[in-house]
Structure formats: structure tokens, C-alpha cells
């Protein structure tokens, strides 16, 4: 079949050229119209522009008809990838105007504009003069004080939030108006029904666990308290131990002693001496493996797993020790109380596995307590939770010595760095644009946006369920006295300091860290296999990881210790790399033909230019730039300093790196074992059969009729871990009688590796077998006949004929497949994104994540170079084989 004749070919080329022109035009048309009067200000999803805008925004937009506030969105990715779209847009200089992410991370990467021009800064008075101490030295305290603030809204922000948004004396963010509290939501009715009093909430761990046990429903054998495996709802528990997830260490300049303070401590006096250490430079560290932070996890473990019984006479719950379990009785108030094994209850909380909304709908029905956020008691009214039934408890202290905790939860909006370049060519225009963005952000964050809602609630007679602070702000103080006493206890507790108000950690990369915290510790304690989970060890390794990259950068002193060793290793690696590159180049050049008939015209060069130019620009330039980047600390904005081997030392010191390498090897081996040999086997089978050959071949070609993306997504859907997932359905139909239970294929470390490989095996077995089929076809029939006469069976024929025929082919393909699989990550990206835990985090995936989620481009390129060094031998082999091989089209049949 002739696909294209000479003329049609030319016509096609012409047509393509026309298409290119039109495509070019389409590209040009895409450029934003500079003359358009509309200023589009974009904002990330924490502020929803798809619902009716609050009054203060409507008012602003009416005043500025040329301004439009639009939702900024990008590609949605799973897990950590959720942060990637913002990060990539920032790296690409097309970020949103107003965005929300980890403040300190954004500042460190210079993604956020300081709000100095509107708010002011530390050390400069509102009138622009420097603020001086009486002795004439600059008066710096790291915070923007009332006399320094240029914006009257600043001092209205609560002090804790002012501390959170200020970095080195400059404000970078504003807290969103819809601030809420994370506390333990409870149903007043259910609590009272269990004979408990919400006015006397549990103040210690022991009291809390007693509540949970008293609420336990013995009839249905289900707990009435549920916990979510989330780090944001776990973080306040660390505060209840009197410690914090992040700590600051300050060295006294006089005594040289190092004192540790909590992250949010403002009283920085050294205990004992009383020396004020607020001037000392703090060292911020992650603290999750400290005895206090471990105690918080241990409490989760206890809630979830500790065995207990209900003492039959009094109904009091009693926790059982291991000995009690062995003996089968306990001593309770000097009485001997025997129990049967079936009386023992394991744990007193259940774990959220369903949608949050499903869980919420149960609050007040069979769910009595649930740690969650809420701004006031009307928060979940629409979900059917009666405001009069809903209450909130602070998290109890570990012992009576610690205060109960409520976690203020908020998002913080920042102005993106790209705003500085927007608005127009002149500075005045850009300033005008910036001001518009600022005013919009101030309004988005202003509590006035809530006014309409509060008024509506007051009109509906719900004033008593609101936070008194809101009522006061709208000027409706008289309603405060109607607030039910248990609600008032909570609000008053926060205001008087009886309840400790904390925020999620704000130093270090908390957003990044909390994913690890969640999936490596909290979730694993709570999940069904968590009883024997060694959380102390997990916390230790997590803390180590956190202080060497995930949350805080590894201190330079630590890197210096390895610098000499690193230089030696680097020199060796570079030497080997260099040798191989030289070998490759030499190898390719060995067969220099005679120079007879050298063409001297310009025509060949014209023909070569496009290819060579493209390879130079998109191959060599990035390669050299990548080499340079590996020795820099690449910053998306501003100068990227040269840091020598630091990236490589950090990687080598990171235990995760070895895990990634190990996982990669595991993936490659599995993949080669399954995906590489499947087509060979298939080709054998297809040559052996005599009937329905075409039919079978067509069957195995079916996956070619759809795209690789669809294949993978389809399999992802089939691997669904619920009982309605396709594979679980088939398996239960086939093996149900053997007691098959649905498997969470992609969430289970035992199955996940095979699962990320199967889709590609399935999809490529057919098409890849073609080449082997073609090779086998070239074997002369006589050989087979001769073998048959010799009485060789299938295996014999395989060994004697088929193997030798395709062996070279297998070798060639093997090297290529090895190199390709080593870098592959597409299916893993789609199926698991490296999860569960870090189970499928191969190098390719780790590089992607470092680069496009964490914006650590330098680290990512260093990873890539390491990957290249591991592979260089194979690459050399591959290129060598390439030169030795002739590519021929297979004979047509």
C-alpha cells in the first residue's frame, strides 16, 4: 500500500506549511492584548470567585469597573503534586497575583512581594523616619509595631498572626478573613446523654480518653469518637504536651549555654538567669522526635489501640496492661474483676476513611466528637448539624500542668513576585497595578467580607452561636449575653489565655513537612496495621529528614565536615564520567572514511542547520546549564549563588536518596522481568500456534487502539481498592470462596510495585512482540523441520533455534530498555505519585518532585546527574552497539 505518492507528498508538505503559519498566528493571537482596559487580578483557590462575592469586594469592583478579580487555577495533580501548579507557574514567571502557600518558603524562594510599601516595616516609623532607641541605635525588634505601621488595618490583626506573617521585620502576608479554630467538635446532646458535662471538659489526656470510652457504643461495638489521619489536626496535640513541632534554640552570648524555646514563645528569657535572648540568632529545628512530641503520638496510639474493659459494676472504663490481659482479671478498687476476652475493647476511636462530609453528617447521630475546624457553631448547619447541638472543646493538656489548646487555623494571602512586572511599561503604571492588587487583597482578607453572613445569622436568631468577637466587630454587643455558657467558656478561655491559642508551625517548610508527617507517622499509627508500628523509630528518622531538607536546610557546618571526602568522590566520578564520554566520542569517530569527494557547497549545511541548531539549543545549552546548576543554589528569582558540591553532599547524606536508588533498581528489575520478557514469550507462543494466529495477534494488539494515558488511567481505575474496583470484583468472583478480601492494590506496599508495571506490560506486550515475530520469521523453515526430525520438543526447538536467532536482538533491546526504564516515571506519576509512603518513589519521580513541587531545581539536576553517572556505562554500551548494528526493515510478508 503506497501511503503517499510523490505528488500527494508534496501537497501534504505544503498543507503542513500552511498549518504551521496558522498555528503561528494562533500563537501570536494568544498574546494578551496590551491595550485592553481590563486589569485581571488573579487569586488562588482559597478565595472562591465562583460564588457570590462579598460586599466589600463588590463595592470595590463597582468603583473600579476596569478591574476584574479572577480565579487562578492550573493543572490539578495528586498528593504533593497539588502544590506543583503554583510552583511551576511561579518558576515560569506567570504566577497568580494573590496566592497562598507556606509564607517562609515563599519568602526564602522570593516568590512573595514584601508588603512594606503599604504596611511599613520594622525600624522605620510610619512617617518614614528611622525608629531609634534613646541611645541612637536603630530600634529593631523583628516586628512591626503600632508606630511603625502605615496601614490602620495592621494592628487589628491578632498578634499571633502578625508574628506569623512577619519575616525579618517585613510583612509578607495577610490572614484570610475566614479564620477558624481547630478544636474537637462535639454534639452536646450525645455528650450529655453519656452522663458527661460539656461545661467541665476533659483537661488532661486521661480525662479525655475516659470520655472517649464512656461514649463508646457497646451495643454496636463502635466508637463514637473519630479522628482523621491528618497532620493539621494532629499538630495541636503536640502543643498540648507543652512543646511544639518546631523549636528555636538560642545561645546565650554571656554564658554560652543553649536554651530551647517553643516556636511561638515570645518571652525569650533564659530560665534561671532571666537573661533576655531575643537578640540572639535562633536556630530553628524540627522537634517531632522529642519526648513530648512522641508522647502526643503515643496518645494517638493509646486512643486507637489500648485495650480496655468496662467495669461491669460501675460502668467505668479500665485500661488493661499486658499482664491484665494475660491473667484475665483486674483489680478495681481492691476488687477482683474477671473479664472474658470478648469483653476487651481495643481502642476507643475510629479513623476517618470516608469523605469528610460523610463523617460530618454523622455528628450528633452516632458520632459524638470529631477534631475539626470551625469558625462558630453555625459552621456546618447546611450539613444538618444543629447549631444548638454543636460545641467545641479545646484539645486537653497532656497533664494538668499543661494548658488545653485551640489551634487558630487560617490561610495567608501573599502578593506574587510577578506582580512587580505587571501593569504596564512605566513604573507609575506598575505601581498603580500593585496598589489595585494590594487593595483587593486587603479587602479579600478583611473581616468585613463576613458582615453580610453575620447579619443574616443574627436576623435568623443565631447570634448566640457566633463568636463574640464577630458580634463586637459588627457592633452588636448586646447579643453576647445570649451565648450558651459552654460556648462562652470556650471563647472566654481563648481570650483570657486559659486556653493556649497556637497556630500550625510557621517556621520552616511546614506545608512540605506535613505530608511526610501524615503519611509516615500519623496515618500509620491509625491505620489497621498500626498497632505494632514503631512510631518512635519513624519519628526519629522523620526528624532527621526534616532537619536535613524537608523542613530546614542542613546546616552548613554539617556539610563542611564531608567536603573533603565529597571532593575525592566527585573527582573519581567526574573522571569516570569523562573517560566514558571520551570513549563514546572516540568510539563514534573511529571509522573515519576517506575524504574523497568532499562536498563543498552550502546546500548540505542548509539541510543540516535546522537539526544542528535545534540540538545545540535544546540539547547542548541545557546540558551545560544543567551542569552549572548542579553546583549552584538555583533561585527562581534573583541571583543563584555557586555552592560547590553542597547539593551532592546533601544528597549523599540523605537516607532517602539511597531509598530512591534502591526503589529505582527494584522498579527496573521488576519492569525488565515483566515488561521486557513478556513480548518475547508472546512471540514464542504466537510462532508456535498454527491456528487462529491472526486472531490472537489482533487480540494482543488491542491496547494499541487507545493511548498510553488512557491505558494507565483505566488501570488506575481498575486497581481501585474498594470492593467495587474492577480487579477486586473479578478476584472475588474467581477466588471469593477462598476467602479473598478486597485489596487496596495501589495503597499496599506489597502489591504496588507490580501494579505500576502491569499496565505497561499489558499495553506493550503485543506491539513489542512484533519485532521478535519478524526476527523469528526470518528463520528458514528447514531448520525447524530438521529439528523436528531430530525429535526435539518445543523446549528443544526454543533452545536450539529460536534463542540463538533472537539473542542479538534481545541484547540490543535490553540495553535500551534498561536505560529507558531507569528514567521512567510516567506510569508512577499517574498511578501512585510515588506512594504509598515512598514505596514507588523512583529517581525520575523524585527529580520531578524536587524540581516542580519544591522548586529545588539545583538539587533536581544534581539528582539527574547522579542518575546519568549510574547509567553512563550502559549508555556507552548502547551507543557502541548502535554503531555495530545495521538497521534494516523487516521483510514484508
Amino acid at each position: 500500500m503506497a501511503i503517499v505518492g510523490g505528488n500527494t507528498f508534496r501537497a501534504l508538505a505544503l498543507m503542513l506549511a500552511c498549518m504551521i503559519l496558522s498555528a503561528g498566528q494562533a500563537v501570536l493571537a494568544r498574546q494578551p492584548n496590551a491595550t485592553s482596559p481590563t486589569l485581571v487580578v488573579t487569586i488562588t483557590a482559597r478565595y472562591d470567585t465562583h460564588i457570590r462575592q462579598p460586599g466589600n469586594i463588590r463595592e470595590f469592583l463597582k468603583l473600579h469597573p476596569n478591574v476584574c478579580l479572577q480565579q487562578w487555577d492550573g493543572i490539578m495533580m495528586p498528593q504533593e503534586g497539588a502544590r506543583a501548579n503554583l510552583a511551576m507557574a511561579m518558576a515560569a514567571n506567570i504566577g497568580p497575583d494573590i496566592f497562598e502557600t507556606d509564607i517562609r518558603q515563599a519568602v526564602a524562594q522570593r516568590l512573595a512581594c514584601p508588603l512594606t510599601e503599604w504596611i511599613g516595616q520594622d525600624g522605620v516609623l510610619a512617617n518614614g523616619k528611622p525608629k531609634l532607641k534613646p541611645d541612637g541605635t536603630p530600634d529593631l525588634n523583628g516586628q512591626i509595631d503600632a508606630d511603625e505601621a502605615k496601614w490602620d488595618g495592621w494592628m487589628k490583626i491578632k498578634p499571633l498572626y502578625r508574628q506569623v506573617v512577619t519575616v525579618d521585620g517585613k510583612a509578607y502576608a495577610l490572614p484570610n478573613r475566614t479564620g477558624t479554630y481547630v478544636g474537637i467538635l462535639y454534639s452536646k446532646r450525645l455528650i450529655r446523654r453519656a452522663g458527661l458535662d460539656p461545661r467541665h471538659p476533659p483537661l488532661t489526656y486521661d480525662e479525655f480518653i475516659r470520655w472517649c470510652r464512656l461514649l463508646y457504643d457497646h451495643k454496636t461495638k463502635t466508637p463514637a469518637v473519630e479522628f482523621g489521619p491528618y497532620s493539621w489536626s494532629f499538630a495541636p496535640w503536640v502543643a498540648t504536651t507543652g512543646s511544639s513541632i518546631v523549636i528555636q534554640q538560642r545561645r546565650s552570648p554571656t554564658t554560652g549555654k543553649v536554651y530551647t524555646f517553643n516556636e511561638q514563645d515570645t518571652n525569650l528569657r533564659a530560665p534561671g538567669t532571666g537573661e533576655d535572648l531575643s537578640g540572639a540568632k535562633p536556630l530553628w529545628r524540627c522537634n517531632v522526635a522529642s519526648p513530648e512530641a512522641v508522647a502526643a503520638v503515643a496518645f494517638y496510639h493509646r486512643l486507637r489501640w489500648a485495650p480496655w474493659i468496662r467495669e461491669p459494676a460501675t460502668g467505668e472504663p479500665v485500661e488493661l496492661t499486658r499482664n491484665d490481659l494475660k491473667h484475665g482479671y483486674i483489680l478495681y478498687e481492691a476488687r477482683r474483676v474477671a473479664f472474658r476476652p470478648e469483653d476487651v475493647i481495643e481502642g476507643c476511636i475510629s479513623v476517618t476513611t470516608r469523605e469528610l462530609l460523610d463523617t460530618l453528617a454523622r455528628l450528633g447521630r452516632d458520632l459524638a466528637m470529631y477534631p475539626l475546624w470551625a469558625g462558630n457553631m453555625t459552621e456546618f448547619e447546611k450539613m444538618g448539624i444543629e447549631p444548638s447541638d454543636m460545641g467545641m472543646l479545646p484539645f486537653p493538656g497532656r497533664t494538668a500542668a499543661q494548658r488545653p489548646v485551640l489551634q487558630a487555623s487560617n490561610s495567608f494571602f501573599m502578593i506574587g513576585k510577578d506582580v512587580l512586572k505587571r501593569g504596564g511599561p512605566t513604573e507609575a503604571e506598575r505601581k498603580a497595578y500593585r496598589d489595585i492588587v494590594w487593595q483587593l487583597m486587603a479587602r479579600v482578607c478583611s473581616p468585613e467580607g463576613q458582615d453580610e453572613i453575620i447579619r443574616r445569622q443574627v436576623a435568623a436568631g443565631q447570634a448566640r452561636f457566633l463568636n463574640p468577637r464577630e458580634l463586637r466587630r459588627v457592633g452588636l454587643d448586646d447579643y453576647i449575653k445570649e451565648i450558651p455558657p459552654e460556648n462562652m467558656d470556650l471563647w472566654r478561655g481563648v481570650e483570657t489565655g486559659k486556653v493556649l491559642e497556637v497556630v500550625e508551625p510557621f517556621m520552616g517548610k511546614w506545608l512540605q513537612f506535613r505530608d511526610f508527617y501524615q503519611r509516615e507517622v500519623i496515618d500509620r499509627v491509625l491505620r489497621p496495621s498500626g498497632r505494632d508500628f514503631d512510631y518512635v523509630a519513624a519519628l526519629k528518622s522523620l526528624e532527621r529528614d526534616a532537619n536535613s531538607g524537608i523542613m530546614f536546610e542542613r546546616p552548613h557546618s554539617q556539610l563542611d565536615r564531608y567536603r573533603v571526602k565529597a571532593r575525592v568522590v566527585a573527582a573519581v566520578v567526574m573522571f569516570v564520567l569523562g573517560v566514558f564520554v571520551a570513549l563514546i566520542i572516540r568510539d563514534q569517530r573511529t571509522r573515519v572514511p576517506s575524504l574523497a569527494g568532499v562536498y563543498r557547497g552550502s546546500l548540505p549545511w542548509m539541510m543540516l542547520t535546522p537539526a544542528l541548531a535545534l540540538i545545540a539549543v535544546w540539547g547542548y545549552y541545557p546540558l551545560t546549564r544543567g551542569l552549572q546548576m548542579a553546583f549552584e543554589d538555583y533561585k527562581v528569582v534573583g541571583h543563584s549563588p555557586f555552592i560547590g558540591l553542597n547539593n551532592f553532599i546533601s544528597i549523599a547524606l540523605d537516607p532517602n536518596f539511597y531509598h530512591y536508588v534502591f526503589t529505582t533498581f527494584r522498579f527496573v528489575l521488576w519492569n525488565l522481568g515483566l515488561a521486557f520478557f513478556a513480548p518475547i514469550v508472546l512471540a514464542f507462543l504466537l510462532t508456535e500456534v498454527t491456528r487462529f494466529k491472526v486472531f490472537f495477534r489482533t487480540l494482543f494488539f488491542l491496547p494499541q487502539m487507545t493511548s498510553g494515558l488512557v491505558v494507565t488511567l483505566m488501570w488506575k481505575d481498575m486497581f481501585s481498592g474498594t470492593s467495587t474496583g474492577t480487579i477486586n470484583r473479578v478476584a472475588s468472583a474467581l477466588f471469593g470462596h477462598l476467602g479473598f478480601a478486597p485489596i487496596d492494590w495501589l495503597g499496599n506496599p506489597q502489591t504496588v510495585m507490580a501494579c505500576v508495571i502491569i499496565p505497561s506490560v499489558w499495553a506493550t506486550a503485543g506491539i513489542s512482540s512484533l519485532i521478535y515475530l519478524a526476527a523469528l520469521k526470518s528463520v528458514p523453515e528447514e531448520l525447524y523441520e530438521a529439528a523436528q526430525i531430530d525429535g526435539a520438543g518445543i523446549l528443544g526447538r526454543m533452545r536450539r533455534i529460536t534463542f540463538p536467532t533472537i539473542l542479538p536482538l534481545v541484547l540490543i533491546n535490553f540495553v535500551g530498555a534498561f536505560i529507558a526504564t531507569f528514567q521512567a516515571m510516567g506510569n508512577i506519576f499517574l498511578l501512585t505519585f510515588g506512594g504509598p509512603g515512598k514505596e514507588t518513589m523512583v529517581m525520575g519521580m523524585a527529580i520531578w518532585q524536587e524540581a516542580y513541587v519544591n522548586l529545588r531545581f539545583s538539587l533536581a539536576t544534581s539528582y539527574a546527574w547522579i542518575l546519568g553517572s549510574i547509567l553512563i556505562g550502559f549508555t556507552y554500551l548502547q551507543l557502541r552497539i548502535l554503531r555495530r548494528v545495521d538497521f534494516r526493515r523487516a521483510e514484508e510478508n
Partner: protein
Amino acid sequence: MASIYALLIVGGVTMVYPFMVMVTGSVSNPFDYNRRSMLPRFLWSREDRFMRVLASYFPATHRASVRQLRSYFPDFPEDFQTWAQIGDETTASDRWARKQLAALSDPHLQAAASDYREFVRDWDLRETVLAYDYRNVGPFLRERYGTLERYNKSWEVSIDDFSKVSDSEWSGEPIDQQCYVPEGDARDRDLLEFRRAYRENRFTPYLRGEGAPAGYLRPASLRYVWEEKLAEAMGGRIPQELQPVEFPVSSGAPSEVRRVWLGFLATEFPVRHIQIEATEQRKQEFQRFVAGRFRNIDYLNRVLETSAGRWEDVKLTPTVPDGKLARVWMDFVRTSVPIRDWVIRDTLPDKAFQEFALRRHSSLAGVNSAYGLKLHSIRQLGIPFRQAALVTFANREWPMTLDGITSNYTFVLDFLLHRGRAVQNTVILVLLTMFFALTVNPLAGYALSRFRLRWTERIIVFCLVTMAFPAAVIAIPGFLLLRDFHLLNTFWALVLPGAANGMTIFLLKGFFDSLPKELYEAATIDGAHEWRIFWQISIPLVKPILAVSLLGAFITAYNGWEWAIIVCQDPKMWTVAVWTYQFFQLTGSQPSVMAAFIVNSIPVLLVFLFCQKVILRGIILPQMK
């Protein structure tokens, strides 16, 4: 030998099975999607067809829809909770469906159904429930407003695509809530307009004309709320002798029921259906109530955003007023007006229908004989939606089933064609990629083969060496380079970095090498120009290989998403592949996602079918020299 066949057959089944599940999934709906069966059972099972139609009348995502269904179909089994679960229990659902369908032989069915039709025809749109298909919202608004700006202005929102209209705005309002009252704003008006469109069967042409009394718009009956309340009070189940229960309950009801009813009225019954008498005394009471709530006029004005000068300006109306005062009014009625003074208005569809039936059939006896019932109070009469739905199903069985089959596909196509540029982008990208595949590499390969350049070997090395490094080393700086050239979110970002490939050049050079040298010599002697030799002699000879690389270019361009999600984040630049990924990411496992998969596969399928020969002829066998 047998084992080989067995292996191949097992392998073949695993090849086919996922596809069948996917295709079946794409024509399923919430009722049968989770079965993941190979074949769509509804094609031969009438029971399944009925249940699918029922699932579209009562979509699980809508507020309390299965609870409403239970009220219309009193024998709906207790343990039927979600559509997925009902679909799973094939025997039970078949049995139940057969029982319903058996009622089709009831001679009274027609009368009830046509009365329903008559009643619904001009029933107040505000008191309706719409089992709408969210896929119609976008097109509806597009038609109503024309431009996004006008829509944004009217709704005081900011969206950049009609597909992003907040879904929650359209999924039935909380009609069962005690203090719910429509806001009467722009979105409310649009919602009513949308319902009107449904009433006129604008989105469901197959329900037009006689014979289809039950549309997707039905009166907002509240019987289900009462029945649930009563059942709960009676210990989980309403005794047989009380069924069908009265709603609203008359004064002659058993005292037990009456007691529950008063409690129901006080705590749950929607106050907007209540009318009170605005006597002088009560007016003063209301003023006192308002004064008590707002303390002073200033508070009142601040909360209600009014400008009243005196308490007397706030008037008590007999029925719920419009605007912000509505909530105060409802609170007043609830807390200060004794229930015995409440009169249930005709806005309650259950009551309105009872009166409608009485008017039509002149007496309770007339109603009983027309509907084939044995009621002893007209208050027991419910809205005959069940009868109407059965008649509709009987007359429109296949059109409704067909709509269920096509709706997922029409949704996906509508999305692809109207709400993005995915199709245009993909076409342009594929053409661009193919153009480059046809020019850059073949030209270079040809030049290297045809001409003895001084640096031929060096050039080959130059082309091949970049391959020695992992793609990631090149990709990251490549991304940054694209940014510096301002090429992100353009087609160039997708095409240029991969346009030239050393390996392909090397391969092509090999093929050009294999052409007989005499060809060139003969052509040169004939005086043919180099371009002519290239176009007319060499290219046609390597056509099979070029066809393969064209095919490869098509596949990479069409399927490519890894690079695209990095360099083309802007939704306006998404290709079909990225769009499919996003669609899956956002909606999860759903029938429409399966349809999207299939739509995505169609171009690949076509290319594969037409180019099988190309693939087979283009197999390249490496051979050791």
C-alpha cells in the same frame, strides 16, 4: 500445545476484558456503573432499564432524593440506600422492579398519571424539585446570557468558563428546612428559568407530547419529611393501620399522630407554608418581637440593611415577606404564634394536589374510584408521581434508555468542543509535530548520507552524544530556557525541544545509505538539481520509514502529557491528553470519565486501523554487522 492455546486465550481475555468494562462503563449511570460488568445488562433487562430511569429521576447527588423516592414508592426496600448498592444487588432490584412494572396493568394508573400531568403543568415553579442533569447548566446559561461578562455581572461572581458554574447552586435547595426561603436574587430567577426550560422539555425532547406525564420537574412534596418523622416517633416503622398517613394531618387523626404532628410543626415544618392572621394585637406583638431582637433601630438597620425610622415601620404580613425580614418573620411565627393559629397554605404541593383532586373528582369517593384507592380522608392522598413515572416509562422506555446511553458522550463532546480549545490545540500540535518530523530529521539524515562532508563523523557524534545523558538533566534547564524565551504556554514549547533527534537522524542516514548509489549518479548525469533528487528520488524510496516516523510523531503529539503539563499549564493550551488527565483527576471514577477515555481513543483507533500496514512494514530489525 494445548497449554500454549490456554495461555494465549487467558492472555486474550485479559486484553479484551478491560475494554469491555470501559465501554460498558461509558454507557452506564450511577445505578449500574459500579457493577463493572463486561456487557451492559440493561440492553436485555427491562428491570434494569426501569431502575436506570428511576436513578435519573432521583439522582443520588441531589438533596434527599432517595428519601423522596421512598415516599413515592412506599415498598422501596429499607436496605436500598445508594444507587450503586441497589445496582449491585441484581436479584433484589430485579424483583422490586418487576413488582413495580406489574402495576402497569392497573386500569387506574392512567387517571392518576394524567391528573399529575394536569397538576404539574402550572404548579408554582418555586415549590418544585428538579432532577436536573448538571450537564445542562452550562449550555443553559450560555444561551441565557450570551457572554460571560453579563453572567458574571448578574451573578456577582467571576468565572472564566460556563463549565465552572458552581454546581451547588443548582442542586435542589433545602426545601425541607424549617426556615428556608428563596432569596429572590439573580441566581434564583435563573434557577426558575432553568426549571421552566425543563418543564418545556427543552433538554429532554423525548418527553414531549402525550404519554410522558412525569418530567424531571416535580412538585416539592414534603410528605417524605413527615413520614420519616412519624416513623421515627413510632419506633422505626409506621403501623400498617395508619398507612397511608395523612399529610398534612387533619384534626381527626389519632391523638398519637396528632401529638407527633404538633411537634413536627413546631420544630421542622417549613414556615414559609404557614399563614397567620395579622391582627392588631399580633402586629404589636411583632413589633415587640422585633424590638426585642434588635434592641434598637440602629441595630435593626444595620442587620437588615434598611433605613427604618421607627419600630412601626416594620410591618407584619400574613405570609412570609420577601427579603431580609423573612427570617425575622419566620422566627416570630415559630416562637410567638401558637400553632393552633397556623394555617397551612396552598403553596404546599401535597395539600394543593389533594384539593385539586377533590375539585376534579368532586368528592373523596370520586377520588377513590378514579385512582382505585380506599382512602378515608383526602389528606391521605399523596402526589401520584409513581403512577406518572410508570406510565412515562411504559411509553418512553427506549428513548429514555437511549438518552442514558448517549448522555455521557454528549457531555464529553460538549465539553471538548465548547469549553476549551483542546481539539483545536491537539490538531495544531499534531500537524506541527508531523511537519517537523518530516523536515528536520530527514533533511539532516539525507545531507549526512548523500554528501561527503569533512565533518560527517563529528556531526553524527554531535547529534548522538546528548543522548548519553538522562532526559531530566536536559528537561529542567530546557523548561527554564523556554521561560526565558517567553515560549511557555505556546505550541513551540511542545514542539521545538523534541524536534531534532540524534537517534532518528542516525537511523535515517542508515536508510539513505542503503539506497543504491547508482541512482544518484544517474540523476546527476541527467542534470537533476539536488532538491529534485531529494524530493523525487530519495524521499519516495524511504517512504515506509518516513511513514513510521510520521506515525510516531502523531502518537507522541497526541498522547504526550508529561512535558505538556510542565510547559503548558494554561487551560487554554491543554491538549486532549492533558484534558483527559485533568478530567479523571477532577471527577474520579465515573461513567462520563469512561466516555472521555473512549473519545480520547478514537483518533488513535482510526490511525491504527488505517496504518496497520505502515506499522508492519516499518518494523526495524537491528542486525549485528
